[in-house]
């Protein structure tokens, strides 16, 4: 089934940053989006980047995944990426636009896909793990839920999806493929993000740990709070009855908690 040559898939990628060393790299979720795009549309999948086109900033690593080219929408660091992308996406006709959930640098608000979806009037699916199939103008999307769970959604094309870290790992990048890949510039005029100019950015301060404060009135209460073993408020205990009744009681609780369907 995959790759589907008729499907027009675009991935929006950003420059990443290693969480510990701060070194430039491909952003992990964006790379997963590229990987999903490559799986669905092969070499026909497009990759779009808004920035100054510094290849060392992570673009080389995307190109090294086997992409022939990346569409570069020129903008400097102070620019707002949303109007630029909006204009470009309106001009092109994509079926599926993939992004990561959050960027790895800067504000990382994760708002770009939401703003694009709102202004294009497309549906948005967040935190996807995979796209199973596309048929009849609709896609079946596997959404990643907390605790390793998955949910199946059906969305009409065109749509925007944010790719979760639960999606398939991005392939290894290669030096030769990165050298062969090209950046295709598109001339844009990007407005400056004015609101952001007034904010200040500082290295992250460690957040204070929350202390467990015992709000006890007397010394005996405080002692008790400090030494008490973690205990429940005394649940129900079933001693009598057949094994079947006991098992039924357990099953009822499991069903009412919704863990057994």
């Amino acid at each position, binding site marked *: 089934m995959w790759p589907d040559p008729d499907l027009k898939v675009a991935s929006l990628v950003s420059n990443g*940053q290693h*969480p510990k060393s701060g070194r430039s790299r491909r952003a992990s979720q964006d790379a997963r989006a590229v990987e999903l795009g490559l799986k669905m549309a092969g070499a026909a999948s497009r990759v779009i980047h808004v920035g100054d086109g510094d290849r060392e900033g992570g673009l080389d690593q995307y190109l090294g995944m086997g992409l022939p080219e990346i569409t570069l929408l020129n903008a400097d660091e102070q620019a707002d990426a949303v109007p630029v992308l909006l204009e470009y996406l309106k001009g092109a006709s994509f079926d599926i636009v993939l992004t990561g959930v959050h*960027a*790895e*640098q*800067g*504000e*990382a608000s*994760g*708002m770009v896909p*939401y703003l694009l*979806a*709102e202004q294009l009037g497309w549906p*948005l699916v967040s*935190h996807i793990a995979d796209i199973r199939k596309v048929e009849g103008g609709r896609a*079946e999307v596997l959404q990643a*839920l907390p*605790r*390793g*769970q*998955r*949910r199946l*959604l059906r*969305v*009409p094309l065109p749509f925007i999806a944010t790719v979760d870290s639960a999606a398939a790992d991005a392939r290894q990048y290669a030096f030769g493929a990165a050298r062969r890949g090209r950046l295709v510039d598109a001339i844009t005029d990007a407005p400056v993000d004015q*609101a952001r100019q*007034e904010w*200040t*950015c500082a*290295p*992250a*301060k460690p957040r204070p740990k*929350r202390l467990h404060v015992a709000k006890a*009135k*007397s010394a*005996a*209460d405080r002692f*008790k709070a400090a030494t008490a*073993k*973690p*205990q*429940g408020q*005394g*649940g129900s*205990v*079933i*001693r009598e009855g*057949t*094994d*079947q009744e*006991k*098992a*039924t009681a*357990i*099953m009822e*609780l*499991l069903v009412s*908690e919704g*863990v*057994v369907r």
Partner: protein
Amino acid sequence: MSDTPRRNPRMEWILRNRLHPEHEMLAAARNGPTRGPTGLLRKNPHAVGFIGPHGIRRIDRSAGLSGGASGSSSGGRGRSTGAKVELPLHRVDNPDFYVAVVVDLVAGRLSSHDRDILGQARLLVQGAEEQGAVVAVALGEAREANFELAGADRLVSLTELNGRPLSGYCPEHRLAVLEAVESQLAPRFWLFPDSIHGGADLGSRLSARLGERPAVHAWKVDAQQTVCRGGTQRTDWHRPTARVLLLAEECALPVDETRHEAKPIELDTLPDVSALIEDLGPVDVDPSKIALGEAEFILSAGNGIRDWDQFHAVATALGATEGASRVAVDDGHMPRGRQVGATGTWVTARVYVAVGISGAIQHLQGIGQCDKVIAINLDDSCDMIKRADLSVIGDSQAILGELLRLAAARQDNPDTASDDAATDMTEEARHVA
């Protein structure tokens, strides 16, 4: 006669002398509040405690915690007597503005993250000069969600919109409800938990719809200034407080000193939405592929298990992730990666079933964050039974066998499985009789 209070030395002497025949009578008469010579209310420091069996005064300072003679302590003023304390009710009659909090309600309960956000909303209300009210917006079924104690003055609770239940993935419907709240109440702030349970998604959708620029990963918020964590946790962004806030965990302390009204608000107009995204329901995942630390439902085995094949079969039939106690792992029945407890994995399961585990303190620490614990054990005095919400005393092999049968019956016929089990049971009871 003058109003000057006069001492009665004889009465005082009788009151001091417990053995005097008139002592009891006079002491009973003087139990009420005493006034000093100037009319000041006096506290009698000698009126604490009670006289023990050997004629020695006993003062119980345990505040009812020791469970011993607390019931007979008398006159212990100023001490909490262990009774349930009724928190003072915070009333807001005519709020000038609202602060809306959209809670996640994971599995129908307020998570600790939700409570933190409600605490932050309380701080924002307290900081303002006008009188404000915190509105909790609860979309979907709420169970055991104690909005009064969590700090909600008002409550917008919807379980369905135009006949479509607000469960599963329905961001368009939820967004429509929030827009209705916006048009009716026009909250000063919108607060969302920045969580993977849907809070971040819904908050981003609302801010895109309202055209507001949200503060995301905000962890230090007041009415003017906000500090947000940037990408990969490496930067802090100081910015003016936005109208839509997506708040990190532990951004504020939860409300715990007041009770609130949680008065329901009815929405005047319920919007009509046609959703583009269709929810086809959850997909079965292989429970053994889920990491133990994030599994939702764990069936854990201990020293009490004899038939390990049966245990694995039950875990498969129930769709539970397998765990084990240290003893079971040391004996080689389970791999080390499945060990639950302080020396293995700290689990966060919502439901934890402990089969044949007596509950060493390291194990109980490891399951500290679990919501519901079910214990199956032969020994009804073990620590696991004290921790568990539901304990079943009996042979684990027999009970697991019955569970296996029930699970198989449910899979064959999910709707009537419980009825079948009930009829089976009556039949079996008849055979036994």
